[in-house]
């Protein structure tokens, strides 16, 4: 075997190892629950922007805040670091990614399903729609599915949610704001 082939083999092996680390990192991240909405993971919410093996051997995990003032942001960062530390992925760094700004459009289909099951109505697609921003669209009740609902408060228990009430079954419920 000549030197070029050996080198090629070595680089393929390195690539495979990097891919394994990235996969293990994603698996570890999928276990990190949102501290305020434990029904969904940080991956479901679209908060993980990238997991990249850098040339210097460090695995870079890009994390986005939902709202700039969300008090959960630091707790999330802590849990992410903790979960990655236990995942046998070698050296890593968690960076904060501000641009492009996080959007509720990035919540995965799986995340939307879990939110609804948990009793929180997922945000409208898409955040750029004027209707969604102005809140003119009826939000369906997560329990009885009636669209005869009203908003009772623009703001809720966390920065990402608003309060609504169903006029049909009279139950209050939360709506994940469209942003």
């Amino acid at each position, binding site marked *: 075997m000549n030197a070029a082939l050996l080198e090629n083999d070595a680089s393929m092996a390195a690539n495979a190892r990097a891919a394994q680390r990235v996969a293990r990192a994603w698996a570890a991240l999928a276990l990190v629950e949102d501290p305020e909405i434990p029904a969904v993971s940080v991956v479901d919410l679209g908060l993980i922007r990238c997991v990249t093996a850098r040339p210097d051997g460090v695995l870079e995990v890009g994390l986005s*805040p939902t*709202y*700039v*003032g*969300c*008090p959960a942001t630091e707790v999330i960062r802590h849990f992410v670091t903790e979960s990655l530390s236990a995942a046998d992925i070698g050296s890593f760094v968690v960076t904060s990614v*501000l*641009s*492009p*700004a*996080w*959007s509720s459009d990035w919540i995965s289909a799986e995340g939307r399903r879990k939110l609804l099951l948990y009793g929180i109505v997922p945000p409208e697609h898409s*955040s750029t729609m004027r209707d969604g*921003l*102005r*809140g003119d669209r009826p939000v369906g009740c997560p329990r009885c599915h009636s669209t005869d609902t009203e908003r*009772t*408060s*623009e*703001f*809720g*228990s966390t*920065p990402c949610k608003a*309060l609504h009430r169903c006029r049909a079954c009279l139950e209050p419920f939360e709506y994940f*704001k469209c*942003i």
Partner: protein
Amino acid sequence: MSVAVANAGRTDAEARDLFCFVLRLGDLSLVLGQRLGEWVGHSPALEEDLGLANIALDMIGQARLLLSYAGEIEGRGRAEDDIAFLREHGEYLNPILVEMPNGDFGQTIVRQVLIDAFQLEMFERMAASADQRLAAIAAKSVKEVRYHLRYSSGWLLRLGDGTAESHARVQSALENLWSYTVELFAEDDLDKAMADRGVAPRLSEVQAAWSQRIGEILAEATLDRPKDRPHSWHGKRGQHSEHLGYILTEMQHLQRTYPGARW
């Protein structure tokens, strides 16, 4: 204010300008966030308590991003908390409007509409700033500011077009606060330099858009637009009303009494 280290290819003078400009934006958010926080536990209804507290949180979030950046530009190792809690009265560069007392709920709402509309027009344009960090902060914040304005203008419509009492109160608050809006758009050398370098939009452009938007909201709220009168306020240059002193006394108490205290 002296800036020790120029970075990212900036000259000392450019770094000093950018530092001051970022402080203007960051201090606006910080002081208004602190003001709104005073409502927690005192709002007219639970929903409004949540609303004002949430907006306050977003403001503090903006301040954290901006003051951290200011610290990096300055290059003297000051972190966001050092800048927020350990500066003196005259080193704050926020416009005076945000330090005005909360008054009643109506006055808080009037102040909020005026500032939300200002931040909206400012950040929408600053999302295209030549300074990438500021562009990212603006693009992130503008989404939240749009929501703030939806809340504050919704209340202004209800209060302005509500009862005779609510109308009279918000009209009076508007008369009281209107003159302080002049400062938001009074372009000085720093504002001009920032616009020339493509860091910030021209304030005249921001003012035109703000004025139109505010005009529409006031008309819908059946409120009279106060007359513009010449005023010179210089909060942006560190000359403040007496109110800021009281705000800082409360805000800085913990860090002044127990230096370096952490959660």
